[in-house]
């Protein structure tokens, strides 16, 4: 009996030890690898994390590797929905890959954790198009990422469809209302975008800007001398409601995602979608794009507005962050790769994948569709005044302090989506604007508390 009890005690001890070993093992497996001591031709493996196995970095890297055979890329793919959560956990547990794709607002928001490398000593801003780093630079001037594509925000329009319906390309807001009715009469709708994704609001923000909202940013968000409900923001909201009433959006807009909007455009159920130039996968190689039916368009102008109508929202909202814990040999390899990435050859490969890199003076030397060509010229065209997104400008109003800005961040997106979906009616706009007034007032007061004014 005593022997049995000893035996079971020993088994219990072994089990407990095993358990501890498993936990210790888990901890050790998370530690960053230090196997590379690369110099010269020593093999180096760079760990790169992204949302797609076929992303541009992997394509450019394949070419780069032909002349740098000692450097290889270990691509870790994480699906888009879980990407931010995964990176955040990696930051918390100090297990970031060597470099990874990320959104600029997240890289700036999390730069304070010390997990990301400041790239300001490695990037010469003059080599890039004006405005490239507006979203990815911290208030202290640190650069949080290597820039990916320049996003130009506007609309994609099917010019042939307009012709077939006997319509000219709309120039004013009133033209849009008329076009909306013609599309409806023909069993189609003017705008494909819906409200299921709250982020595909690019062109609508562009309207806010053309309508003069940006000129009021300081009064609204810095001084607090003007309420949003008394600004051009409110005025533009009424325009969305009028468009909805005119039948410009699908009746089921509340469940229409950006992907559905794209499908509607390709199926020619709608004439226009608002989009950013980096979200055109599946459209760039479509029949309509090859035939030149699709054109990138800045939408209508607002003649009554005092704001400059010849502007363009250019922003580089994504890029490639580098882990702060990276070894020197790996960092050297990454820097060398990005030199190649932004070279003529690298830019051309990226362009063939549909990505226009914001490199100053870049001219394509590969054959592309008229649509892609127009995106290249828009990226490098300085005749339009480049402006940043409303999000980054309002964030700048509180010195990049996301802690107090966050409640304001998605409020306007939600209002626009509600109006498009018809969930918010014209009569309800004053209530929603009053709520937004309160959100902004709180943000300003919190900011003043922080800076001690």
């Amino acid at each position, binding site marked *: 009996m*005593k022997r049995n*009890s*000893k035996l*079971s*005690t020993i088994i*219990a*001890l072994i*089990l*407990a030890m*095993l*358990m501890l070993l498993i*936990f210790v093992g888990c901890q050790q497996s998370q530690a960053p690898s230090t196997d590379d001591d690369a110099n010269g031709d020593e093999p180096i493996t760079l760990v790169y994390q992204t949302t797609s196995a076929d992303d541009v970095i992997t394509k450019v890297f394949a070419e780069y590797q032909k002349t740098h055979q000692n450097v290889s890329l270990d691509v870790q793919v994480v699906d888009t929905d879980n990407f*931010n*959560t995964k990176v*955040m956990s990696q*930051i*918390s547990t100090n297990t970031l890959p060597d470099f990874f794709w990320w959104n600029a607002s*997240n890289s700036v*928001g*999390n730069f*304070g*954790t010390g*997990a990301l490398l400041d790239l300001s000593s490695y990037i010469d801003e003059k080599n890039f198009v004006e405005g490239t780093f507006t979203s990815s630079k911290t208030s202290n001037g640190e650069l949080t990422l290597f820039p990916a594509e320049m996003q130009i925000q506007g609309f994609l329009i099917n010019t042939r469809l307009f012709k077939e319906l006997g319509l000219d390309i709309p120039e004013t807001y009133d033209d849009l209302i008329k076009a909306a009715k013609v599309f409806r009469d023909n069993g189609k709708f003017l705008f494909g975008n819906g*409200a*299921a*994704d*709250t982020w595909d609001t690019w062109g609508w923000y562009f309207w806010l800007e053309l309508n003069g909202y940006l000129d009021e940013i300081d009064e609204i968000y810095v001084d607090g001398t003007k309420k949003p409900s008394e600004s051009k923001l409110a005025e533009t909201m009424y325009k969305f409601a009028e468009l909805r009433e005119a039948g410009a959006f*699908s*009746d*089921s807009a*509340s*469940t*229409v995602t950006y992907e559905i909007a794209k499908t509607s455009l390709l199926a020619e159920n709608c004439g226009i979608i608002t989009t950013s130039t980096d979200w055109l996968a599946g459209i760039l190689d479509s029949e309509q794009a090859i035939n030149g039916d699709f054109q990138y368009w800045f939408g209508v102008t607002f003649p009554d507005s005092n704001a400059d109508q010849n502007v363009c929202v250019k922003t580089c909202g994504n890029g490639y962050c580098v882990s702060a814990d990276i070894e020197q040999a790996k960092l050297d390899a990454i820097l060398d790769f990005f030199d190649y990435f932004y070279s003529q050859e690298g830019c051309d490969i990226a362009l063939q994948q549909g990505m226009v890199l914001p490199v100053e003076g870049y001219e394509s030397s590969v054959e592309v569709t008229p649509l892609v060509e127009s995106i290249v010229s828009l990226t490098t065209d300085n005749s339009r005044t480049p402006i940043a997104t409303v999000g980054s400008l309002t964030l700048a109003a509180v010195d990049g302090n*996301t*802690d107090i800005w*966050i*409640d304001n*961040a*998605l409020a306007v997106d*939600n*209002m626009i*989506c*509600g109006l498009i*979906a018809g*969930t*918010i009616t014209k009569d309800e706009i004053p209530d929603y604007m009053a*709520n937004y007034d309160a959100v902004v007032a709180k943000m300003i007061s919190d900011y003043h508390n922080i800076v001690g004014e």
Partner: protein
Amino acid sequence: MHIYSKVWRRLLLCLPVIIIFCVYMIYPICNTIYTSFTRQIMLRPGWWVGFENYITLFKDEVFWRALKNTAIITIGTLVLQLPLAYLIGSFMNRPYKNGVFKTVTFMPYILSGIMAGLIWSFLLDSGFGLFNNILISFGAEGIEWIGGKTLTPYSATLVCVWQSVGYHSVLFLAGFKTMPKNLLEAANIDGANALQRTFYVTIPSIKETIKVSATAILIGGINHYQQTLMLTGGGPVHYSETLSTYAYYTQFTVFNFGYGAAMATIILILALGLSIAFLKLTTKKGDTA
């Protein structure tokens, strides 16, 4: 206490489970409760704000809307699912062959909530959905089953019932199988009709099964997430948020971890409190809960 004593052995054998329970249950719960008292945006260090997140939460219109939607889904699934599962379970208990019926009824439960939501979004969408296309082909007006201001939580209830009724029917079937047959025979001899047999014999005999089933539905309803996420994502303008979708949105879209943690704590309190209250109310003195 001697090292070879029974108590030590028992403790040692339980240690792996205790460690796993502490690391994966107790620590996250405690951490969430602590975070709910801080202002923490993204991964920067948070600071203590006391009850501020809770005060903001109780003033938040969307939170109350999410609570209302969650209540509709929880009560709706309870009211529909229990009697439906009882009926299906009793049908399964019939002496003739019904293997296909059992399989078909149980099959939706094998699907994930995401898949169920996706399938139903193709049926319920007001634009391309099958239901509306049928209505329109008969000359009727389409209905905004999902995505409008009101119907989404009711549609989500329907999806939940469709998905889980098979599972609860099997629970009821197990209850029926363990029922002493002589009780029903005795009731028959005593001249009890079908309704009397149901209310005075069958239901009291499977009371424990009903309690287990109802508690699972209650907790599932309060934590309801996947189906609504797939149907509408909580939109438009947060009209169809449930407590869990709104907590997820706050934590992983806005990255306001403190506020999201406050919401998660409320969900925990609700699920725990309502389950305990339900079990207390349905357990008579002397019964084993």
